[in-house]
């Protein structure tokens, strides 16, 4: 790291610019590789550059019932976990946004812990609890694990928006004779709608892609990431794996970009 000597403070030196763009390029390298390999004609090795390009593997992957079953399970788990997280996370955000009470710090800590500690802790902890309680792992244990960290995501998104919502608006609404329900419906809800949507989409994408917690809580169920993980150690069907990889990237990227667009800071917000 060097600062340019010419005292032109608004211009980056060539070296600084190069380093920044190199860092960004490094972040994108694997994404490009995945897209490229989905079309390769080579089905045994990781040969680069690919000897030829084909769409054949997409066709094969589309005909595979095990992939569709895993996809359906993943979508269903993500939808249920997101739904639970939207309710519970929003309730928590409303309670914690402006209030001051004793023990608030501890409760706030509790609402970051599931993503602050590594996922493996959540996974093994849930498994320990299921074992102690004699609960058989399956669909609902997956949902339980996912909902736990999805709550945190929704909570973070909604609370950030609520803190920017002027308290005076709510007071004005009440002064003008609206009751609590009306204030919520016509003042608060329109303001937090995009934050709810964004939080929900992030939670959905996170749940759809989750593997670390899921491997502990899934029992014999196979979500799409678990299917993918197993495939990594059974390299017979590499081209199919490549196609699924690209599809997963696309499925998760759409909600992520939409969430970013909905919450981007430059959004002209009626102040």
């Amino acid at each position, binding site marked *: 790291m060097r*600062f340019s000597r010419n005292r032109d403070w608004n211009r980056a030196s060539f070296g600084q610019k190069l380093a920044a763009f190199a860092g960004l390029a490094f972040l*994108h390298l694997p994404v490009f590789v995945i897209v490229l390999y989905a079309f390769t004609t080579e089905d045994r090795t990781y040969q680069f550059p690919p000897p030829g390009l084909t769409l054949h593997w997409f066709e094969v992957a589309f005909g595979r019932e095990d992939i569709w079953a895993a996809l359906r399970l993943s979508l269903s788990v993500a939808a249920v976990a997101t739904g639970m997280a939207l309710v519970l996370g929003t309730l928590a955000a409303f*309670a914690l946004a402006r209030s001051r009470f004793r023990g608030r710090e501890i409760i706030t800590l509790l609402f970051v812990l599931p993503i602050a500690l590594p996922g493996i802790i959540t996974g093994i902890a849930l498994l320990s609890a299921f074992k102690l309680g004699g609960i058989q792992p399956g669909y609902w244990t997956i949902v339980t694990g996912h909902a736990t960290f999805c709550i945190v995501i929704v909570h973070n998104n909604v609370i950030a928006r609520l803190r920017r919502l002027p308290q005076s608006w709510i007071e004005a609404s009440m002064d003008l004779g609206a009751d609590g329900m009306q204030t919520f419906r016509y003042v608060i809800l329109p303001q937090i709608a995009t934050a709810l949507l964004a939080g929900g989409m992030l939670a959905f994408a996170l749940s759809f892609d989750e593997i670390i917690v899921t491997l502990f809580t899934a029992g014999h169920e196979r979500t799409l990431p678990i299917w993918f993980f197993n495939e990594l150690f059974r390299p017979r069907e590499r081209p199919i794996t490549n196609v699924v990889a690209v599809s997963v990237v696309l499925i998760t990227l759409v909600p992520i970009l939409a969430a970013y667009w909905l919450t981007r800071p430059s959004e002209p917000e009626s102040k």
Partner: protein
Amino acid sequence: MRAIATFLYGRRGFYLSLLLLPPLLWLGTVYLGSLFALLVQSFYAIDEFTARIVPNLTLATYRQLVSHPANVDIILRTLSMAVAVTLTAAVISFPVANYMARYASPRMKAFFYVGVMVPMWTSYLVKVYAWRLVLAKQGVLSWFVDRLGLAPVLDAALTTPVIGGPSLASSYLGMFVVFVYMWLPFMILPLTAALERVPASLLQASADLGARPAQTFRNVVLPLALPGLAAGSVFTFSLTLGDYIIPSVVGAPGYFIGMMVYQQQGTAGNLPLAAAFSVVPIILIAIYLSLAKRLGAFDAL
């Protein structure tokens, strides 16, 4: 419904606890309850003859954890990897964050922001898999290395003891690259936020007072960037400590804490030992947080 809403508006404490109760109940029972169950499991032990878990509180599993040199090796190996990854991620992040915070035009900044977010949110598992394609023997990286005539450099790195291996995809060096890649955005974003808060006038003042760029960096920028580095390093450190997918997919022969946890609860069927192993990263993270706090890393947050 309206009557209830009006009733509640007047009784703030009651209303708050009503809101807070369901999510608190969920996290309190499911999450904290599970953490407690984890702790309980780690104080159980497995009967060596029947391979059943004996539900009596004992320190035997922890004794097994610290008395086996192999287990201690695993903990030290994971810890060194986490430290190395954290330091490297900080070094690589700095130019990117500095450019985003200080030089980039608003449009360029948005471009960089999305450019960091997209890979960060791209499927974790797919990224790990992509790295296998990159690092494989005939893969992307070796092709570029050959073209650039750098093959001797790669060979030298791979024959280095400890970090080397038969190929990048099965060496600690390759695993290290993947770890750094994975957690890099988690370092870039908080660091950018911290650097954005450093006023340009401070740098000008420092230069005007005769400081060389290196001095300005060490005495002005670095202390002010510390909260960002601390926040980012908590992620890189804790995520590396807990990961078990990367070491098992881009694998060197040695075990890591996460792999032990996964393997012990699964094929080995020794849930108590898995639980005891998973307490190690919690303790390490707690030590790390208190160290960072003592160094004043969170004061400016």
